[in-house]
């Protein structure tokens, strides 16, 4: 296992730029997830690492070696494809052994390593089956074993869970994560699913329009988003445009005055997570007065839509116990919303470019 470094990686198709000067370093044994909406360049980036896409500019380094001009078959990456891409005319053992054959591993050793890899994914009893005789989850595990058995320097996962049903998704995700940690695999993963990324990755890379918006741990991105896009893409977030008038005072475009964290005066966007808003029933008391416009009972949680008169907010809170006065709230009732100033971050109005923390 080695490190993976991308330096100024770009890919242009004619006038369109799919990947725009991406810099990234994946440490040994680290799992980094590329996260973003479809068309953001995350898949192109992954394919450039694998060697399926030739970059227009920039470098790819694996274990310190520049592989930018190496063909795919000489790169020593192990990729799990979204569609699994199992060879339909080969048995499970044949699929898993293919990479070993390419590396001219002798028959006896090859058989032993195939068995070991299949045991790792708990499929050693299905070695002679053809891929079409396996379930989706089993095929996924064969694809994992096939990529792992050659001991690649970098492990690549392309939307590894997207073809699984919702129940399996979490289980397989955790299984992959456990395997990755146990084997210390340097891993780059692509996903459009933030839950998947938050659950599996050491660090996340949020991309949009081919550019990296922010790199950081799940907590970094959630607690300290650098841009409104990241704030909205990772978790839910109230985003209110306006300006900082005085320290701790944010004036929304509608004219409302809201408490905010430390920020220089000037235009900005107030980012406030729905669960950081504390709600109290009744018109009198501390907090920002509002009117309840709608509420949705979600079991453990309840979602409140608030009309501030000058704007709207969504708040989410654990559903209060039955005796709580908030349980008797109905649309139209007056309420008060409160939050600590530090919870209300003021973000620059335009998305910044490049890496930031």
């Amino acid at each position, binding site marked *: 296992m080695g490190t993976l470094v991308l330096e100024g990686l770009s890919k242009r198709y004619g006038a369109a730029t799919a990947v725009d000067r991406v810099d990234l370093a994946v440490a040994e044994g680290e799992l980094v997830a590329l996260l973003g909406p479809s068309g953001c360049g995350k898949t192109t980036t992954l394919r450039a690492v*694998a*060697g*399926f896409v030739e970059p227009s500019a920039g470098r790819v380094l694996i274990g310190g070696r520049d592989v930018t001009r190496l*063909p*795919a*078959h*000489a*790169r*020593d*990456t*192990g*990729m799990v*494809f*979204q*569609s699994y*891409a*199992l*060879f*339909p*005319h080969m*048995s499970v053992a044949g699929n898993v052994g*293919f*990479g070993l054959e*390419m*590396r001219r591993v002798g028959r006896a050793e090859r058989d032993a390593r195939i068995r070991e890899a299949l045991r790792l994914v708990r499929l050693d009893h299905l070695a002679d089956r*053809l891929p079409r005789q396996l379930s989706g989850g089993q095929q996924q595990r064969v694809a994992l074993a*096939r*990529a792992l058995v*050659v001991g690649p320097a970098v492990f690549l996962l392309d939307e590894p869970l997207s073809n699984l049903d919702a129940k399996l998704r979490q289980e397989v995700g955790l299984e992959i994560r456990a395997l990755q940690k146990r084997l210390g695999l340097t891993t780059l993963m692509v996903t459009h699913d933030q839950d998947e990324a938050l659950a599996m990755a050491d660090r996340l890379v949020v991309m949009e329009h081919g550019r990296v918006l922010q790199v950081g741990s799940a907590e970094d991105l959630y607690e300290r988003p650098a841009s409104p896009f990241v704030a909205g893409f990772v978790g839910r977030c109230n985003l209110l445009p306006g300006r900082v008038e005085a320290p701790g005072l944010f004036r929304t475009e509608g004219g409302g005055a809201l408490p905010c964290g430390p920020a220089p005066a000037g235009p900005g966007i107030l980012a406030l997570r729905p669960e950081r808003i504390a709600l109290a029933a009744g018109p009198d008391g501390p907090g920002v007065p509002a009117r309840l416009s709608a509420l949705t009972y979600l079991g453990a949680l309840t979602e409140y839509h608030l009309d501030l008169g000058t704007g709207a907010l969504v708040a989410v809170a654990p559903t209060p116990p039955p005796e709580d006065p908030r349980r008797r709230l109905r649309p139209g009732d007056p309420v008060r919303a409160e939050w600590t100033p530090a919870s209300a971050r003021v973000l620059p109005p335009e998305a910044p470019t490049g890496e930031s923390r």
Partner: protein
Amino acid sequence: MAAFVLPAVLVVAALLVGPMLLLARISLNRYSATDLMVEALSPQNYLAAVADPYYRGVMGTTLAVALLCTGLTLALGFPAAYRLARMESRWKSLVTVMTLIPLLVGNVVRAAGWMGLIGNDGLINAGLQATGLVSGPVRLIYTPGAVVVGTMAVVLPYMILTLASVIESIPRSLEEAAANLGAPALTVFRRVVWPLALPGTVAGCVLVFILCMNTYATAVLLGGPQFKMMAPAVYDQFSKGMNWPFGAALAFILLGATLALTVLGTALLGRRYAR
């Protein structure tokens, strides 16, 4: 359902099976110069055809041309089909149509075009002589090579389109997976693309082989009078020699040989790659 299939079945029965049965019947009759043919039930025409070294030679030529054309067409068609199958969508339809365009021209017209190209006073010879490279015309037309090239030009689109549709059905990701696992391009082809394309390759080869075995216009027009393949030989017996029974027997020998080789080839290739 049966009611919808019936018209097609009737058409095939009326236009194909019926005449074939009658032709089979005629092939057992005896030739007569004065009465055209005499009713009989004799294998004599078949025996005579098989025993005659001339027709053995004609069959040998036919088989050689058909096998060579099929092999060369496969060799030329596969890379082209691969490129077509893996092409971006906006170019693909254009190239597919361009592949089809030769099929809009009849075989006779096409062979006539070849004659204008490779004839003794055709374009190529005119060009060669104009450059002074040769003093007299180079013999291109009326050679077996001309027939092979001319026939390939007819059947290549069939091969390319058949192969392209099969290759298209092989996900690109399988090739990427193989490359990712360390397989260079040729190995990817040998271990992944070729075995997965094999059923379609067999289908394309069978189609092309059958077309080549029945080459008529190209053989006559580009092969010249000395070059004989089976289809023109059948025609000669019916039209020139007026020996219908013998012509019918030759037709069935051609049909039988084509069928036998097709079945044999399919079975051999099928078994080799069956798992």
